[in-house]
């Protein structure tokens, strides 16, 4: 203990975790500016794994991957960034730019009557909706409190109205949470999509690098996917990049391995 205290006194206070992360972020940006995309990718990957999920981290990671020539991983990173900050124009622009270079002309969001009705699902995150509902609820209750205290009928009407809006926002949050989608992208030049989880199943169609999909189910080394147009199938995990972003930190679920196409 005494040694520890002496060391602390001599060496001074160790840098905090936040300072370390900020330093890593600076290093990553410098490496990117200098064209050292291997380093910038590695550092942004590290930050995405160790920091609380933030859209800008995945966005920067996507830029680094693209500069390294890994368009599939770049698309997956942008999709992860979009789920955290859906209205960020930079993320949308870069996703569109990189996605346009892929072979498969697949949409990066699903279009249906349901999605049309609940358009805000694509433009807001569950967290935003929760806080919106909470602010409405808080304001509504404050107005009701004041109406009781000051005996003002108008305040009561306003309070009830705001509370109703808050309940609707909470319902929207529940819908958003229920229908939240996890997107990924193909990272190999060609990836066969099978009818079941295993290479012995029938190949139903093929996807190419950068093709976006919704993760439907994950089973061992296989991922059941659904495309924006509703097509479904199974992809080997080694052929895809899916970024998970848990509150404590996320990152790439799987790293790519050399898996040549089947039927050779």
């Amino acid at each position, binding site marked *: 203990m005494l040694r520890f205290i002496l060391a602390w006194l001599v060496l001074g206070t160790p840098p905090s975790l*936040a300072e370390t992360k900020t330093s890593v*972020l600076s290093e990553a940006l410098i490496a990117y*500016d200098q064209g050292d995309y291997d380093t910038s990718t590695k550092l942004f990957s590290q930050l995405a794994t160790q920091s609380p999920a933030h859209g800008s981290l995945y*966005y920067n990671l996507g830029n680094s991957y693209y500069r390294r020539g890994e368009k599939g991983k770049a698309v997956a990173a942008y999709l992860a960034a979009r789920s955290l900050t859906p209205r960020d124009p930079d993320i949308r622009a870069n996703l569109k730019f990189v996605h346009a270079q892929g072979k498969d002309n697949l949409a990066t969001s699903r279009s249906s009557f349901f999605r049309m009705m609940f358009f805000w699902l694509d433009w807001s995150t569950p967290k935003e909706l929760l806080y919106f509902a909470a602010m409405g609820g808080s304001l509504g*209750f404050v107005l009701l409190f004041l109406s*009781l205290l000051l005996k003002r009928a108008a305040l009561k009407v306003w309070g009830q109205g705001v509370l109703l809006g808050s309940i609707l926002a909470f319902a929207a949050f529940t819908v958003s949470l229920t229908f939240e989608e996890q997107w990924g992208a193909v990272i190999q030049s060609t990836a066969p999509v099978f009818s079941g989880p295993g290479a012995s199943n029938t190949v139903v169609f093929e996807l190419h690098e950068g093709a976006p999909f919704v993760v439907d189910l994950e089973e061992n080394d296989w991922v059941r996917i659904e495309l924006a147009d509703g097509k479904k199938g199974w992809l080997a995990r080694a052929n895809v990049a899916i970024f998970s972003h848990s*509150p404590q930190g996320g990152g790439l679920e799987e790293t790519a*391995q050399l*898996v040549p196409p089947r039927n050779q």
Partner: protein
Amino acid sequence: MKVSILRRKTGIVGAMCLLLFLTPPYVLAGSAIPSLDKTVGTIGESFQLSIVIEGSLDGDVEVPEIPDVTTTATGSSTQISWINGVYKKEVSYNFILDPQKEGTYTIPALKLKIDGDWIRTQPLTFQVGSGGTANQADQDERLPSVFIERDFSKASLVEGEPVVSTVKIYHRVELAGIEAVGEKLSGVRVIDLKQYKTQEQKGPYLYNVIVYKQVLIPGKSGQIHLPPFRIKASIVMPREERKRRRRGIGDIDDFFGDFFGHAQGRVVNRTISSEAAILDVSPVAENRPKGYRGLVGNFRLKSDLSQTSLKVGDTTTLTLVLDGVGTLDVFGKWNLDLGPNIKIYADQPQNEEEVSEKWGLVSKRTFKFALVPTRSGDIVLPDVVISYFDPEKRQFEELRASLGTLKVEGGEAEAIAGQAQEAPSVAKSDVRALATDLVDMHRTIPLEKGQALTNGDYLLVAGMVGTPALLSLVVFLFRWATERERDMVARRRSRAFRTFRNKKEKLEREGREGVSDALAQGYLLFREYVGDKFNQQGSALTLKEIESILSNSRLNRDITQKAVDLLKTLESWEYGGKTLDQDQTEWMGIIENVVREIEDKC
């Protein structure tokens, strides 16, 4: 004599036969017989080792490690026979041996426990030659079914110079689940290129070939030892081969194989390797010119200005294109300096890389700079100069781009041009609109503040909503209790007369025994009415208290006085023994009248 000898011999042979016939099978000792499909071969050929075990083996068969030989277990097969009532079971354990070098190899004796006894097998020896003495046709005949070849576009290179590594996986059997077992190379940048498939004729065989190319860029000088390129794959053994190896039981197995649809062959897992390789990497020459930024290869530089005549504060775009053979990874950010009269804003450079069989890596980087002149007049722009090392010529070369002169007129912005902070041509919104490159990085990120939902968010939200909700609830409950109290008082007040009348009627209906008692009850009813009407509990009020209550009410003085007088009279009658001047029934009527008057006024 001869007959007796013959009889004796016949008897001995018969007894032996009988003994042999009566001996049960388990008395027969177990055996382990190793065999090789051949004892002489060349490098690249595989040897098949089979160890046939008769009897019950305790444990598994493991072949000891043989130096420079890769041993792969390919499974086991069982042969059961029942000949002349004798049950026989043989299990064949199969291995494939891949020698890496020429020489004589010995498979050591294996110690196996069979039927409870330890048995040692015979050691086997096989020879591996280079194949040089055999004629080409023989060599071709012995080409393995799967092998890997690797070569490089050049054997010696300079630090930073790209070299293309071509790995060809040749196979004439079906492969599945190929997985590269790569060892990460230190000090070498590896760019994976697209794989493709082709076919090549090797000797008498037409091979399917998976071509896998990589560009290797050594980051340091010296000898780089590249480990063998290895893959793990599942090989589908051809049916014929299998039949040949499993002597005797092929027909039955084929029948069931065909019936159940897995007659293509058996799948074995193998690791296949190429040979190791060494790359000689020379350092870049020492006499490095000023401004050399580590480029190695053969490059060229082109420049272009979007306009040369402009006003102060206007923007002209300088495009510098650096392209050539080699990597531009080391080049980094280009901090251009064009003198004090030009403000420079760099756009994100665009990179393009192509891989060519001939050149290796061909790179192109386009730099765009927005130039904003801060003064009017002719501004001569200095040449842009960079150097690179040419590995073919073994010397440094200089690239120079002349930018010319800017003719700048004075403009409204001249006065404030020096304060310009942002170049309009590189604004994010412009990049988004043009969609010709990535929008730049996000440089300020609050790393400790995540955007995903956490338990903390739920707690915060609960606090945000719960606190005012709780406060509102408390106030609401307080208000509700107060209202309820007020309602009860009002209800009692509104029901005071009805209660009085009901009780009076009940009193009359029950017909008290004495009139005196009825008046006494009527008196109490009157006091109770006053208590209910003016929110006073009970009827045990003093006369003074009743007088005070009535005086403070909205009643006029006459009614108050009348009520007080009535109460005084009745009290004197009840407790003072004073006689009443009127009939007591009339007094009951008087009480009712006073109550009615109070009720009318309140």
